[in-house]
């Protein structure tokens, strides 16, 4: 027989105690995927959900920066138990890379993702939020293959270019039958300035991008106070960014009556 990789066989067992899995994606860098994923995890934990946050952007790991996860490390216990930061169980390659960059080719990224998923013991969670790297690349394809029940939450910005890339990507996800929660538009300008951003809250979505998968479920304004709150979860929760995201969350993430992973309802698919 050909050498057999045993690791994928255990991944679904590792995720079996998790209610809903949401992958925060977007097809460009610097559009707010990581702050959205991190703040969403904080908001959910703040509402009493047991929440995990998995950073799969190995090249640009930043969830640990948003949460200010300093001096924490997973606990070795028949696998690795993610440390809790501000009520969120965090797993990130940053724990293992020190301050070094992680220069990985595609096949290596895949291998590292499989390893991390096989050894991480999440335990019982209501939600696992995944911070994805930009684009449909190794991480995205692995997600589809290894965690088929993950739902995509796409972030975009008010720009014709971002919308164009988004539309193509959502169509692809739809073809691959990946469930989508919807699209959040980030850095939406204040109403008076909307005209300066041609794509803002606008026409691209009128045309039902991705044939429905790309439904706009809310927008988040540009928040000049966000930057200085990064790294401080209590401050982050009080930003206008968190308020806008919180409003979207209230509509789409239902609180379970009593805690049990399988009871979580995610609406809006």
């Amino acid at each position, binding site marked *: 027989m050909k050498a057999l*990789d*045993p690791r994928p066989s*255990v991944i679904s067992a590792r995720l079996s105690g998790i209610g809903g899995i949401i992958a925060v994606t977007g097809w460009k860098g610097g559009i707010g995927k990581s702050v959205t994923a991190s703040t969403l995890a904080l908001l959910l934990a703040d509402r009493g959900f047991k929440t995990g946050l998995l950073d799969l952007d190995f090249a640009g790991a930043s969830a640990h920066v948003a949460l200010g996860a300093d001096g924490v490390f997973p606990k070795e216990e028949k*696998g690795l138990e993610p440390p809790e930061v501000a009520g969120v169980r965090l797993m990130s390659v940053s724990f293992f*890379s020190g301050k070094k960059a992680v220069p990985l080719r595609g096949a290596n990224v895949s291998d*590292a993702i499989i*390893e991390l998923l096989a*050894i991480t013991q999440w335990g019982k969670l209501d939600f696992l939020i995944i911070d994805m790297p930009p684009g449909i690349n190794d991480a995205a394809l692995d997600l589809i293959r290894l965690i088929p029940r993950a739902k995509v939450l796409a972030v975009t910005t008010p720009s014709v270019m971002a919308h164009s890339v988004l539309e193509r990507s959502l169509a692809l996800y739809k073809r691959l039958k990946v469930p989508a929660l919807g699209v959040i538009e980030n850095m939406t300008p204040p109403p008076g300035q909307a005209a300066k951003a041609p794509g803002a809250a606008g026409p691209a979505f009128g045309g039902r991008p991705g044939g429905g998968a790309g439904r706009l479920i809310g927008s988040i304004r540009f928040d000049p106070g966000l930057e200085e709150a990064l790294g401080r979860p209590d401050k982050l929760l009080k930003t206008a960014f968190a308020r806008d995201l919180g409003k979207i969350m209230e509509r789409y993430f239902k609180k379970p009556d009593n805690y049990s992973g399988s009871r979580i309802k995610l609406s809006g698919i």
Partner: protein
Amino acid sequence: MHEWALAESVIKAAREHAAGAKLRVLSEVGVVLGELQAIDRKIFSFALAELAKGPFREIGRCRFRLIKAPAAFKCRACAKEFTLKVLKRTGREGEYIHFIPELAHAFLKCPKCKSPDFEITAGRGVSIKYIKGEQ
């Protein structure tokens, strides 16, 4: 102790293989342990034995043969081939590579041209080489 998580994956994969190949009992599984990941052999084989005791009849009497695989690397930049012996790393870095072998690319570099763009051609981590059983 994270060896347990990987041992569990070996048991699961072997049982899945048994079901797929319609094997009634598994007699021997050959597991390769790559030098780079530095899996603790004792803990790993203890974990395999404990996990195989479970309620699964097909694997209860299975023997696990652990096969050492030396790590080998080939530089993509200058084509130099090298082994783990010549590479320097701190204890902490070794531990990180133990958890995720790909971090070798963050801490190790080609001894000739210093590039981190090398290929791990052998001895990365845990894999199953063969599964023997009866139908």
